[in-house]
């Protein structure tokens, strides 16, 4: 019988920070002045300033969602957070122009120069502003726009303004409102009709200053028949006090377009990661979220797809690993708004030590629709005797010839499997991580190769010492 003790895991992967002197610092706390300061520093148009100020009002009005969510949210002290820090540099175009200490941070995170060779463009966000963003020339020639949020709104308002804040309105939830008020950084991407971006676009986020909240804003628009894959990774150095990350990500897939959005989230375990992600899929379009949550103290993230056009397809594949002191509260939303739309949700969670993994989902098929289908599968694996997992799906179905199925199961690593592997000469730890990798394997095989390798390595690392 395996009765492992809680895992000691290596939280030091991102545990480093550099002295950086920030040219612009909005100070601590949140009020109208702070919001105006951010807007002014960025040299934004008036409509954006108004948008921010309205959002601040909404944020102040909305209550915390603690009537259904974790009470841990009450530990966020909005008045102690820095909402904007920047070094004031313009986004650099080549690797050489990036300041050395910033470069060093990214080197440590493993975005080496050679990786750029096959990553089509890299947009790394160092605290609030994009430190460098580079695009391969041929993509630029095809008309692909890949810029930061500030640049996007300033230089391409005719493209981005139409959808900015439309998929996720300011009042969607308290944290979306917060982001709308103080957002900075993030990626704005536009792929013109018919352009298929063959290699994934990538961005890396990092929180460096203590007590700093990161509020990036991402908007990806794939025009008719376009295809794009976007990857983001996030990490933060370890500080004693809690940090807040609250992003808003909006995807728009027009007729026949395909967007795939991949996240590997590995914040250190003092970060509140409260993210709103939603896609709008028009006729025949497809939006796919691949979401891996390994770090953070509390993650609340429910990527969603609004299936707005006939035969649109939405998919969420999600893996969550919750270790001691972590709560991964993740899930998916599928809002069917047209006939013959289909959606698929596969969620796998692993709880280690005293970690808690929660699945929360929503599937909505209204009355006037025909031929919609949803499939939801949630599997949870519990490693230690004191691990915890919850599943709370919510399914509403009306209409004609619509069908949904939901299944969830909870299991543990089978003692026989471990015994079998051990008597073939594997150590208990190796056997355990092999089992866990087997559990997520049928999901990771859908991931791009480098991500599935990365994920396997991360899981092995997390599982180290989990038995014994």
């Amino acid at each position, binding site marked *: 019988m395996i009765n492992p003790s809680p895992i000691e895991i290596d939280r030091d992967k991102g545990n480093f920070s550099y002295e950086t002197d920030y040219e612009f610092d909005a100070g601590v706390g949140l009020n109208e002045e702070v919001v105006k300061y951010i807007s002014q520093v960025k040299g934004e148009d008036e409509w954006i300033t108004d948008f921010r100020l309205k959002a601040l009002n909404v944020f102040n009005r909305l209550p915390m969602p603690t*009537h*259904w969510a974790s009470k841990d949210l009450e530990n966020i002290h909005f008045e102690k957070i820095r909402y904007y820090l920047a070094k004031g540099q313009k986004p650099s175009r080549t690797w050489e122009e990036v300041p050395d200490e910033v470069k060093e941070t990214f080197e440590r995170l493993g975005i080496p120069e050679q990786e750029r060779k096959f990553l089509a463009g890299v947009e790394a966000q160092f605290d609030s502003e994009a430190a460098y963003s580079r695009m391969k020339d041929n993509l630029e020639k095809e008309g692909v726009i890949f810029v930061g949020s500030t640049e996007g709104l300033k230089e391409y308002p005719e493209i981005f303004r139409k959808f900015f804040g439309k998929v996720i309105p300011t009042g969607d939830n308290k944290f979306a409102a917060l982001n709308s008020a103080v957002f900075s950084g993030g990626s704005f991407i536009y792929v013109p009709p018919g352009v298929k971006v063959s290699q994934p676009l990538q961005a890396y986020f990092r929180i460096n200053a203590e007590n700093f909240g990161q509020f990036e804003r991402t908007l990806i628009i794939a025009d008719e028949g376009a295809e794009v894959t976007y990857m983001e990774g996030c990490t933060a150095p370890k500080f004693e006090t809690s940090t807040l990350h609250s992003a808003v990500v909006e995807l728009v897939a027009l007729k026949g377009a395909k967007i795939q959005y991949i996240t590997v989230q590995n914040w250190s375990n003092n970060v509140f990661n409260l993210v709103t992600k939603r896609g709008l899929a028009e006729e025949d379009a497809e939006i796919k979220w691949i979401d891996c949550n390994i770090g953070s103290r509390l993650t609340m993230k429910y990527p969603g797809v609004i299936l707005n056009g006939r035969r649109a397809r939405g998919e969420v594949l999600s893996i969550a690993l919750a270790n001691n002191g972590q709560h991964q509260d993740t899930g998916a939303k599928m809002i069917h708004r047209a006939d013959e739309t289909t959606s698929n949700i596969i969620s796998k969670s692993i*709880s280690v030590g005293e970690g808690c993994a929660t699945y929360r989902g929503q599937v909505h098929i209204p*009355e006037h629709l025909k031929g919609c289908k949803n499939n939801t599968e949630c599997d*949870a694996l*519990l*490693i*230690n*005797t*004191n*691990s*915890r*997992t*919850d*599943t*709370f*799906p*919510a*399914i*509403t*179905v*009306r*209409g*004609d*010839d*619509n*069908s*949904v*199925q*939901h*299944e*969830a*199961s*909870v*299991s*543990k690593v089978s003692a026989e499997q471990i015994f079998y592997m051990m008597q073939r000469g594997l150590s208990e730890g190796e056997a355990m991580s092999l089992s866990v990798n087997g559990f997520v394997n049928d999901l990771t095989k859908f991931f791009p190769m480098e991500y599935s390798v990365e994920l396997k390595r991360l899981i092995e690392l997390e599982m180290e010492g989990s038995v014994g």
Partner: protein
Amino acid sequence: MSTTISEAPAPTPVGTIGDSATFNNLASTLTHESAWLKNKRQECWDQFQELPLPGRKDERWRFSTRLSMDFNEYRLAGTPDPDAVEACIDQSELVKNPLAKLVFVDNHLVATSPIADELKEKGVIFESLTDGIQNHPSLIENYLFGEEAHLGSEKFIALHNALTHAGAVIYVPKGVELKDPLFIYHWTTQEQTAVFPHTLVIAEANSTVNVIDVFNTSDLQLPAFCSASGNIYAGAGAHVTRKVIQNWSYETASFQSDATIAARDSQVKTIAINLGGKRARFENQLRITEPGAHVTMHSLTVSQGEQEFDQRTFQSHEAPDAVSDLLYKNALLDESRTIFSGIINVKKDAQRTDAYQTNRNLLLNPKADANSLPGLEIQANDVKCSHGATTGQLESEELFYMMQRGIPKRVAQQLMVFGFFEEILEKFDTDEVRDNIRNLVQSKFHQ
């Protein structure tokens, strides 16, 4: 043989149920109640007054239509009309010769057919709530209102506990086996009547008992209110079966809150058949307190018109090596709505738990609305837990198969729907009851 109670039933004060005067009048007539019970009722009444109606933000009422009701629209009804009583007694015959039965009309006990003397000598108790309270005060103090409800209807339970005096107390001593069912019938016959059926089942170690509650009405359009509660205490190794057939009028606001407490190696089966009510809320709590218990919870609902069935369940495993298995099936006609929300909660020490939860919804009309919120909260790692929810229509291939064998479409559809019910109906162990229930369920399709 049932005895009709000829003398006038104990007078109940007539009054609206939201009014303190009604409670006070009732309390003054219940002179036989112990000080403990009197205090308890007062406490519950105060609680009822204080608690607000469930709010829009309450997760436990998610998807429910907003409740707005005036308790003063409903009243504790006076003595029912003798002809109506007669008709009710005549129809209180799900089986011809039950082991024993009690019949209540608008909270008034109108007929009883007591258990045989030899069972009484063995210590079996099957009495009306009023008699039970009078005759067995210590038993009542130990068990009555003992299990706290936490699934959202606290206000309605408090009201129930303050006002209930119709219902049954069932006690089966150690090792005594009652194979045949005991029946309790509750009827509503008067307009705006409020009824509070209470069923308390206490099964001592290794005993067997089988209870069937039937809720019925003399008029399917009668406006009425019901807040019912049933509690099962299954002792070590006890076998308890309880079925509730809810067939209130289509204008009834029905709240039903049941709880089961299962001790070591007990086997408990509950089945709910839900047909009536304008809106019917059904809360079912299970608490497994000792290892080895095996509990099944089944429910079958047919909703039609604009009915709303709102079902909330909670399976709590506090001890290891126990099994609980829940299956709730809903067939939705017309523009009706159903909500199923269930939680399996496995506590830290409840290793080797097997807990299952399944909700199946059959949409028979595009305008019907099925909501499913199956939930798991697992704190132990060596468990087998799963939940599944499906919502769909009749399988078109199956329909096609039957039609090409010469079965007309309408008949084929009906066969498939009845097949959907059979999984629950087959759990009824005696043919007589099963056939009667099957007819009752199927009659909903011929209206």
